């Protein structure tokens, strides 16, 4: 099936006007499948880390949201150990007006502002609430261990 114009256009723009700290490159054999890297936001426990994600645009994209998962291990209350992300715009709040770029920005923002009240990884969220400092320390440690190139 031919690739919709929208996907082509988005891909072109990602290449032409890259977002600082975010990089998304489609697979050559599957243009709906992207290798994504996100730089951890400054002043976050993830600063200095480069996180790899995979992004897949489903058949009825943009009517349905893209499927995104962290490949790099990350300690975050809204991201589980399989890398799945809890983010409203990837679920019910998705709108076809959103794009790969915007959604990746949202994820980057999520790294800077974890929301333990809406957890996906329950144990992490618990820790975050009980001892935020220790949790942040763990996150930073994970970043060094897993996300440093």
């Amino acid at each position, binding site marked *: 099936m031919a690739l919709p114009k*929208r996907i082509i256009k988005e891909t072109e723009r990602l290449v032409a006007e890259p977002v600082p700290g975010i990089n998304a490159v489609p697979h050559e054999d599957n243009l709906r499948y992207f290798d994504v890297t996100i730089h951890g936001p400054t002043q976050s426990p993830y600063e200095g880390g480069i996180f790899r994600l995979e992004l897949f645009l489903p058949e009825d994209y943009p009517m349905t949201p893209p499927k995104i998962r962290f490949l790099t291990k990350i300690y975050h209350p809204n991201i589980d150990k399989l890398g799945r992300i809890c983010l409203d715009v990837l679920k019910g709040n998705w709108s076809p007006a959103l794009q790969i770029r915007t959604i990746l920005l949202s994820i980057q923002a999520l790294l800077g502002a974890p929301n333990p009240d809406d957890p996906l990884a329950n144990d992490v969220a618990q820790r975050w609430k009980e001892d935020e400092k220790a949790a942040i320390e763990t996150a930073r440690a994970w970043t060094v261990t897993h996300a440093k190139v």
Partner: protein
Amino acid sequence: MESSINPSAKKRSFDSPPSELSPPLEDSLLLPTQNMEKPSHIDSDGGLDSRFDQEFKSIVGGDLSIDALRQLEEVSGGDIQRAINMYFDGSWKTMAPKKRKIFHDMSVSVADTGSSKSPKNIPSKIFLGQFGADGWATRSGSKLLSFGDVVGIERQRMRLGDTVPSAGGKSKGKALVADSSQQGGAIGGKSTPLRQRKTQDIVVRFTNSRGEEIGRLAQDTASFVSTLIDQGIAYFEGVCIHAAEKIRTNDTIDLQLSCYLLKESFENSSFRPADTNRVADIFAAKETQDERTLRLRQVALVKLFQKMNLEPKSTNLVTQKHKAAGILQAAEIAEQHEITNISTANKARKTITSDAADESGDEENQSVEEGKELEEDQLNALYQKAQSFNSDTPEAEPADTFAMSLRRYQKQALHWFLSKEKSTNNRVNESIHPLWEEYQWPNTEEDHKKVIRDLGQDSFYVNPYSGELSLKFPKQEQNCLGGILADEMGLGKTIEMLSLIHTHRPEPPSPSIHPTSGFGRLQRQSEDVVPAPFTTLVVAPMSLLAQWESEAEAASKPGTLKTLLYYDSQKKQNLQSLCNASNAANAPNLIITSYGVVLSEFGQVVASGGKRGAHGGLFSVRFFRVILDEAHHIKNRTSKSAKACYELSSDHRWVLTGTPIVNRLEDLFSLVRFLRVEPWSNFSFWKTFITVPFEEKDFIRALDVVQTVLEPLVLRRTKEMRTLDGEPLVPLPKKTTEIVYIKLSKAELDVYRHIEARARSDLARSIEMGTVLKSYTNIFAHVLRLRQACCHPILIRKKEIVDDEMVAEAEYDAAKGFSDDMDLNALIDRYSAEESSASPNLYGANALKEIRDNVENECPMCLSDPMPDQTVTGCLHAACKGCWAHLIETAKTKQELPRCVKCREPINERDLFEVIRSDSPAEEGSQPGSSQGQADITLRRINSRSSAKIEMLVEKLSEVGRSYPERKSCVFSQFTTFLDLIEKELQRRRIKFLRFDGSMSQQKRAEVVNTFKMGQGTNVLLLSLRAGGVGLNLTTASQVFMMDPWWSFAVEAQAIDRVHRMGQTSDVMVYRFVVEGTVEERMVHTIQARKKFIASSLGMMTDEEKKRARMEDIKILLGK
């Protein structure tokens, strides 16, 4: 004999029979005074003097000298009737006296008479046959008559004074037939007036050998025997078969009658001259009298032949179809018709008189036109009969001087023209005249054989339509060296004629060309009509004169055709000196003039007492050829134009018209009259044999006769005709047909499936119960609903419910301040004005401004820039239309509420508005950014009451509108309710359209078609398949949309042909809308394909059979 040599004498009423045989009964019939005392025996030599004088004077009334009387008596041989005739035609003065022979014995044998004197060796009477008849005794007595006795058959006459015998009693059929106007002057008021008998006197008596009257023939026999005797057609004698020894009054006597045809009856058989049509006397009573005599004679002959079981030896197809009964019936009808019409005719005559006084000359005086209007189907039948054109008729090449190239059918026309104009030379196929039948003489007995030997031929000919007899073979006379070119408009009649003018032009000089006989009075009175042997005259309506001139120029190589526009300033030229044979070098080849000029010159010639030559105009020369263009101008034979044209003289006569019959058969008569086709150019002949049967609904007969008139005379091709290879005569521009497959929206499909399921289960149930045909209507209704659902789901819903919903929607709109069409700027003003309230409205105003100013023009969903069909939601967010539709569709399948992609507000499907920019003023240099001088922008609701089909139509129409703004489209649907919906949609889209359907008056329809043709900017015409499918010419359009398939494609094809037909100049695009996977698709692919092989539409099936066939269709349609 002498009288028959002189042709004019033949027309006289008291034409004299040959003196060799004057059966005595003739005398008795002529002179009723003799009847009673001396019925059958006249002593011709003795005692004649006083009585001859007496009788002669009593009839003629003049005082003649004794010498004159004696001479008359001598030349007439004592025959008073003959004497009277000779007296009036003046021949008695020059004639040598002649010995008169009278045979007293009625059964005198034919061989005894001096038949050798006859130039053609015709015996004076010829045995025809025998038949049985009843007689009634009028007296009593014994041994009056016995078996084997010869019986004399005589006419019984009323006493003089009771009734004046109408016309001559003895062999005087022609007395009535003839043009009595000629004798009118001579006899004046003293002549025997042709008073009409109130009741027909048909008494025929029979006498025994002693001359005593025994009785009368029974009425059925007498009715025709009387006529035959009166009109001198036949002579009867009888033999008694059975009679009682003692006869009492009213007893029946069986007779065997032998019938002999009289020689005179054959001599009589020429058609009357054409000038009975003379201008003044159209409705004169004597014409009616002519007809009446003709009819009596005809009926009598047919009855006689019936009685004797005579069958024609050879006839043609036409006469075969009209058995004797048919002819009799027609005659009877004519009789009644005559009676009822006498008053009308009188009225008509009055109209004419007043009309004639009115010199303004309004030719198309409707009140004068007789004849009922023809129904369209009758006209079609007629034309079909008249079309003798065969696609493989030979062609002829035009002369070198002709500068244009002809199409094949035009070359065929040329060939036909040439063969018509030159047909005098090569009359190869001598076929019997269509109205005549050939009979064989009976030759069973020796006596008769001898007669036939004397005669030299064993057959004779009868015209059962006129009652005429002939010994000569009546061939189909074609003395008209021209014809009617009735090609349909647009096939190039003018060019065809011009090719003839070029190709058949006479060799100069040919002094032999001389007016032939058959001319009207004008001609005879003024002998100096000069031949114009090189000149063709074209008479055309004023408006076409210039066109003729330019076409003639275009069609001729330079210098090969001298053309003269004979009109106004040129009028002064003397045509006699210009066109005569000696002026061959300078004579114009073509003179073009108008009907008006012909009419006015005719008036001048008439005013000058018919001096044609002196006038020097159109009537002073005899043209080589006359062509009347748009000849229906002379369709009214009583109009002055028509009469004027009749009088134009020429060798060849042609009429051009696309409509030889406008609405009455009489229209055709006038053309035939102009062409001088005998015998049809005689109006009473025409009327008797064509008009009357036609008006009495005896169409087949009338049409067949018309066919025999038309076929050799008319060349008519229609645009529908094809050449041998099936190509149209004139190739049309290309036609491309595309089936547009349409996908129903989900909502539409749901509705469709629902009905489909019900229809299938109903059908299955009826098949199970074997009541398929009973529930036909019900199931058929299902199919109808399915087809409607394909067009628009609303069509199948109850109108009231739809109306209710519309009211609810209107209320909703009122609350929201929306409507189907909103002006953007007005909307912005409204939002800006609501400043007091909170942000939404300010936002609204801004959002709208953005739309107006094209600030953001990328679709948030598909990222197209600019977005196609920009559409905003109720929350005023924009995206392309297709994306919104997709979004809504996806949400529905997920059973979610569709939400705006920007603000996530729920989207109301109705509140989607397309942004329509009318770009006309935008060209005026106004930048998209500037708010001033903005183009008109409207927000137009998209989702209201539309359907997939309508959407597709609108899409196609606007597509075309963008790329070819001039192109016009016709949209056909069989559902007028669907047209209503399309109409609404077009209104909303501001696409201008017109509508044509069956509910409109004829006048309104014409108006619509005209506006569509002429109108600029109105490029769409909506038509109902039924009303617009036939007859119309819509060649201004070049696109056709067939919104829904019909059972048979032929009906659709007919509609398509309204656009793709003669006159179409551009390629035609046809879109047939078919909804995928529905009954429509099956109709197109299965039913329509099969229909090509079934003759159901030809009316060969009964209703029941049709139902069955249709039921089969339905099973296919509802099949899975």
